């Protein structure tokens, strides 16, 4: 591992940790603008996290160590994923530790831990959230894999840096298979990141929540880490989407100048992606839970279509 490679790796993780709350703040701001409200400051997520770290942690009397360990494990898994997703450079040394499939596994690890922690206290909302989260998870995973399959059929690789390298260096043309996969990926990301139409991140309406129901019993630093981790998850998914469908501007060699150019490119792309997310959320209504199979089934079919188009047309 070269020094410069290590530095680029470090920069990538640091940027991810620093930018993730900003992305959430930006999406919230856009959502407020789109619904004609006065927007909160973009820095609110940082302040929330800081405030939560200061507070005393309140833990339920019958919580087991799993409950207290989970925020750290989830945060660790998301940070690990941030080190692997090629957001700034394609030659980050840790990226070989996990390819796209292993990345999906890493997200599943985080999900299972949150679900277990939600069941740990033994409240009705906790287990309700855990059940729904696992339900959405098993519906979303096949669709997500189909998207990754389509991208890896084009590049002959499941390793994300190679996919980015291949996709970034083809001539600029619209690939119908990638268009299908892009729509499918957007739908899966909405479901995986607990956004409208599957879940609503700003709700505490008891009977409809999924993600919020699972983290209901968390407070203070544990909650801060979980909030930060879910911001990181959104950031990671956005970066995977950008890497697969808009792979331009990612540095292909770890030299300082290219990296410096990659950061503003990433911020610009994330800003556009966040605005798009806010637009989708504003335009759609939350679905009933049992409509989620239809929604994710559509995503799955779109991804399959993309793959078949790729196999038939070779593009």
């Amino acid at each position, binding site marked *: 591992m070269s020094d410069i490679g290590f530095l680029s790796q470090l920069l990538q993780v640091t940027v991810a940790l620093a930018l993730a709350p900003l992305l959430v703040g930006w999406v919230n701001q856009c959502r407020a603008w789109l619904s004609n409200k006065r927007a909160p400051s973009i820095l609110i997520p940082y302040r929330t996290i800081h405030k939560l770290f200061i507070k005393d942690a309140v833990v339920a009397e019958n919580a087991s160590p799993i409950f207290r360990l989970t925020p750290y494990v989830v945060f660790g898994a998301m940070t690990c994923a941030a080190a692997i997703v090629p957001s700034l450079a394609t030659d980050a040394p840790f990226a070989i530790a996990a390819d796209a499939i292993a990345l999906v596994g890493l997200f599943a690890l985080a999900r299972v831990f949150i679900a277990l922690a939600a069941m740990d206290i033994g409240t009705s*909302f906790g287990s309700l959230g855990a059940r729904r989260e696992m339900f959405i998870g098993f519906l979303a995973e096949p669709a997500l894999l189909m998207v990754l399959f389509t991208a890896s059929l084009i590049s002959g690789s499941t390793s994300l840096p190679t996919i980015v390298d291949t996709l970034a260096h083809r001539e600029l043309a619209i690939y119908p298979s990638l268009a299908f996969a892009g729509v499918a990926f957007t739908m899966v990301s909405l479901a995986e990141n607990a956004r409208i139409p599957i879940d609503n991140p700003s709700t505490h309406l008891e009977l409809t929540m999924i993600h919020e129901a699972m983290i209901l019993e968390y407070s203070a630093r544990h909650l801060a880490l979980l909030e930060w981790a879910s911001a990181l998850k959104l950031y990671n998914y956005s970066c995977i989407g950008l890497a697969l469908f808009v792979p331009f501007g990612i540095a292909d060699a770890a030299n300082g100048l290219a990296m410096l150019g990659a950061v503003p490119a990433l911020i610009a792309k994330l800003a556009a992606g966040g605005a798009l997310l806010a637009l989708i959320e504003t335009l759609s209504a939350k679905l009933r839970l049992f409509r989620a199979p239809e929604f994710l089934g559509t995503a799955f079919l779109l991804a399959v279509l993309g793959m078949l188009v790729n196999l038939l047309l070779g593009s």
Partner: protein
Amino acid sequence: MVATPLGALVVAIVAWLAIGAVGLLRPRDLRMVQLLFPAGAAVALAVAGIAFAALASAPEQMVLPLGLPDLPFHLRLDALSAFFLILLACASAAVSIFSSGYFRAGEGSAPGLIGFQYHVFIAAMALVLVADDAYLFMVAWETMALASFFLVTTDHRIPEIRRAGFLYLLIAHVGAIAILLCFGVLQGGRGDYTFGAMRSAALTGIWPSIAFFLALFGFGAKAGLLPLHVWLPEAHPAAPSPVSALMSGVMLKTAIYGMLRVTFDLLHVQLWWWGAIALALGLLTALFGIIYAAVQTDMKRLLAYSSIENIGVIVAAIGLAILFEANAKPLLAAIALTAALYHALNHAFFKTLLFLVTGSVLHATHERSLGKLGGLIHRMPWVAWLALVGTLAIAGLPPLNGFVSEWLLLQAFLFTPSLPQSFVNMLVPLAAAALVLAVALAAYVMVKFYGVIFLGRPREPNLVHARDAGPRERIALAALAAGCVLLGLFPVTVIDAIDNVNGLLLATTVGHAGQSSWLLLAPFATGRSSYSPLIVLLVIVAVVLVTIQLVHRVWHGRVRRSSAWDCGYPLQTPRMQDTAEGFGQPIRQVFEPFFRMERHLPSPFDARPRYEVRVSDHFWAWLYVPIARAADAVSRLAGRIQQGRIGVYLTISFATLLALLFFVR
């Protein structure tokens, strides 16, 4: 004779039988039985060592002067046998140690008798793996079936257990007949039933396909492939937990061994559509098994259905390997076969672990129903934390072992660039999606399994008296959990071992085809796909430790304990947690056509409202009940000639004799 691995193995098998026989001397003496099981475990460890030594060496043969006069027993120890012997030995060593602390007097059969049946069972499984002729294979196979039947019916005073035992015996024999017929086809009319002769017999025309499907049916009955799976969810809950562990973890794998032996070793001719059918059947089995597992309320039934899923995954991988091998893509075939063997090994570890966990829970609480458990992590921390490892492993999560085999299998699925059958080419990625669906559902099921048993609050008041497992049980569980972790963290080392089997069956290896090093698994090339569980684990652990330190240094680590918030609802009883039915409800709703459901919903006017749902298997109504009716009708017809008069019977015998003389002459 003892100097060679095979000779040593024969001695070990005899030692197992002897240990079992000693138990018969004083069957009620619990203390002696508690010494016999560790002795069996020591033999198992020796077998593991022997098999490991034999893995890389050339096949070794031996003829034992036993059996019928001109049909001596042929034994052969090659890489395939050695691999499955390692699996058998590791799992049974742990189960033996667990059993020595588990079996107590006064529960069903006498402990000495259980010890005898148990050791005969293990010895028979080992013999199945080294048999080199159809005769010895069938003898060992039937001994295995009978020994396990008696173990399943340990508590034979309970009618349901007797019923489950007979169902198991019936399906085992239907399968055995198919295997016998398969060997009959394989010997090609030459009358030589050694495997060596079968290997060189050149079958032509439709015969290889007939042999393959007989093997798929016969071994599938033992493994639990659709539609012959019905005995698994009955027999596994009926058996004592160590026996369920052994049956699920090891015995099902002998069926996988048989499939591999017949398909790859004895039948070299391979047609691609065999693979396609095995792949489809495996995936159907996997999906079916896991969907049913999601709605179970009995913890051992849930694990039994999950075993059906895992067997489905293994058979799908075998199907894929056949598909590639028949299309002359040896590297891809080797990766698929590696995934199958790796998953078999993984399943032997985590399913054995989880079945033993249910044994500990059962002993501590006397409860098998998930709806009456809960919160056991506080009462049984050892069992709970070790069970967590098994749960994460079986849910297919990195960095544990279940994920590695699934990753390999997905790689094999994904890189099917140019099969000549373009239709199959398009269906293969869809098959991968079905696999991912099964794996994701497995995570759902295991969260339910673990969450309902160990997390939350105790659903019944008597659970507060539950005690943790004893030291021997803990050792066994810890060993299996350590196995899950090690198999997960060092995949390249494991694959190097499995490569001996690939070399034997496919004449190709995967280990060094790509750029794998001990740290990094990259079967093709690092640029194409790579996975390093150790790095992933180290990064996560490092981040967790640094985060804990930073949070506590920069801010603080104060904790206040209080009652649960739960949106401020004041009344919270343990009965308001999700039950097993509740947790499975989304699955029941989404996959409704898959189930046969009888539901009783309470009406608002019921004085004593009662909710009841019973989920059963379509296959009973669609397949088994019609067959049973037909068998009934045929036997009633045959009953007509049963007059009870000796003259009639003699006439029938005479007519038969005449007919035979006429036809056979």
